[in-house]
């Protein structure tokens, strides 16, 4: 897995919560059926507009709320990485465990406009606004946690070690 991800930026503000990512009525749906409901309450239509490879640049306390697996949702939608002013701990765990690269980076909301292109080195922590030619330094995750992301998330590990049945 590359140490960088690059893509078009979507911005979301502070306190983006799990219930906005996965609405209550969709909690028990299969993952593939949950995807179209992402941000239905706060930004209807976003799922149709976004494209695989896009990057999320988000505000403070991202992923606050429930255990709903926001990492699996964004991974399945093809988001290439999430850069946040700060993360909620549970939201961060789900992003790591789904194999999606996270990067905490205070100040990141100020250097991007939506639609800019971001290039993020989530190992060194350097965040580049390719469109504007500006950079900012984030705080990379410890290596042990990056290794989970590189392994493709915890379910891949379990399947490889024979704890889970092979995908049908």
């Amino acid at each position, binding site marked *: 897995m590359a140490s960088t991800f690059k893509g078009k930026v979507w911005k979301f503000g*502070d*306190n983006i*919560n*799990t*219930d*906005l990512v996965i*609405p*209550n*009525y969709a*909690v*028990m*749906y299969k993952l593939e059926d949950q995807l179209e409901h992402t941000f*239905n*309450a*706060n930004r209807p239509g976003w799922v149709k507009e976004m494209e695989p490879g896009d990057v999320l640049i988000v505000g*403070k*306390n991202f992923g*606050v*709320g*429930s*255990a*709903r*697996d926001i*990492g*699996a949702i964004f991974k399945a939608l093809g988001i290439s990485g999430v850069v946040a002013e*700060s*993360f*909620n*701990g*549970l939201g*961060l*765990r*789900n992003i790591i*465990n*789904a194999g999606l690269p996270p990067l905490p980076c205070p100040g990141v909301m100020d250097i991007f406009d939506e639609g800019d292109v971001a290039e993020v080195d989530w190992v060194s922590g350097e965040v580049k606004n390719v469109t504007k030619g500006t950079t900012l330094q984030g705080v990379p995750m*410890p290596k*042990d*946690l990056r290794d989970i992301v590189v392994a493709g*998330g*915890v*379910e891949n*590990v*379990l399947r490889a070690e*024979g*704890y*889970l*049945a092979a995908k049908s």
Partner: protein
Amino acid sequence: MGMNAIEKILSRKSEGQVVKPGDVVMVDVDFTVHFDSMRPDILKVNDPDKIIAMFDHQVPAPTVLAAEHAVNMRNFVEKFGVKNYFPVGKHGISHVLVAEEGYALPGKVLVNADSHTCSSGAMNCIARGIGPSEMTYILCKGRTWFLVGETTKIVLDGKLNERVYARDVIHYLPGEYGDFAQQNLEWYGDGLSTIDMDGRLTMATVSAELSAEFSLFPYDDVLANYVKDRARYEFEPGFPDDDATYAREIHVDLSTLEPQVVLPNFVANNVKPIGDITNEKIKVDQAFIGSCANGRLSDFAVAADILKGKKVAPGVRLLVTPGSQDILMKAMKAGYVETIMEAGGVVTSSTCGACFGGHMGLLASGETCITASTRNFQGRMGSPQANIYMGSPATVAASAIAGHISDPRNF
């Protein structure tokens, strides 16, 4: 440099090394708590006796989909011989049950794929919500990682005034100090000894809304009395070292607090003392008391005390949902259920139910709810066009009678 209580327990449960903020520690997990469903593709587990299984969010099953998931759960329990099992009839909200039933114990590590697992911090238990895939990982491997956050020490002084509750304390903090994302909380102070276990469990539960990691209460006389007849296992509490350091210390004088109401959609810096909003006469359509935050016997008692001899205002639905079968039974025997029903309220079976917009009490667009459940997020309890305010059970009961958000000190 000494360790605080959270770091001490994490140290003991890992390699015994000194644990400090910024560390990633691998920790042995004592219990995984599972509800409503299990994935059928799990081939082997670490230890069936460390599994606790129950029905809590959607019980009895309100949809065919939930019923199918319940079948998966029952099959799993049978396949792996899970003994710690609470089927429908013994059901309750998981965080309520693990405390009542003596699983969440001082110094233990407990995880559950529900964010309000931090509830068991009231038991001096390292407990947190994790995601469903990680839940499967721990079920299989018996351990997981924690990224150690900085810890804020909260010292409570004084005593709460009448009609002001633990729920108001845990609203006041994020109103004043914002979120505590990726930070831990430890609770101390003379004022804490005046808050009973129901109140502490409320505060630990709602710590999730402060975005906290672990929210740990001390093993003191109040907790020791609560666990002594319940504990199913030996336990070793976590205490801070004498020279423990904290990133921050916050003092709260309980005697200065008035009831605190959280405004809709988010919690951090979105809280008002009730005196600042009652003149707006915010009309309510639904008033809800329940969930892992406030579905306990003392919450029934407060509601019944306020509702006794009164009637819920026309056009308001008052719903009260207990946290477990045991609580409902005790609330019936104490006469609380009768009082609430005579006032025009509805008492349901135990479930997460309306709290997460699952069943039994969803909101229509344009409606307003005052709730003593866990969350005020947009769309949380039904329509994204509904407004959710949060207050203590007393504030909810008073508002149900008045028909608008009201100060319980007037009742």
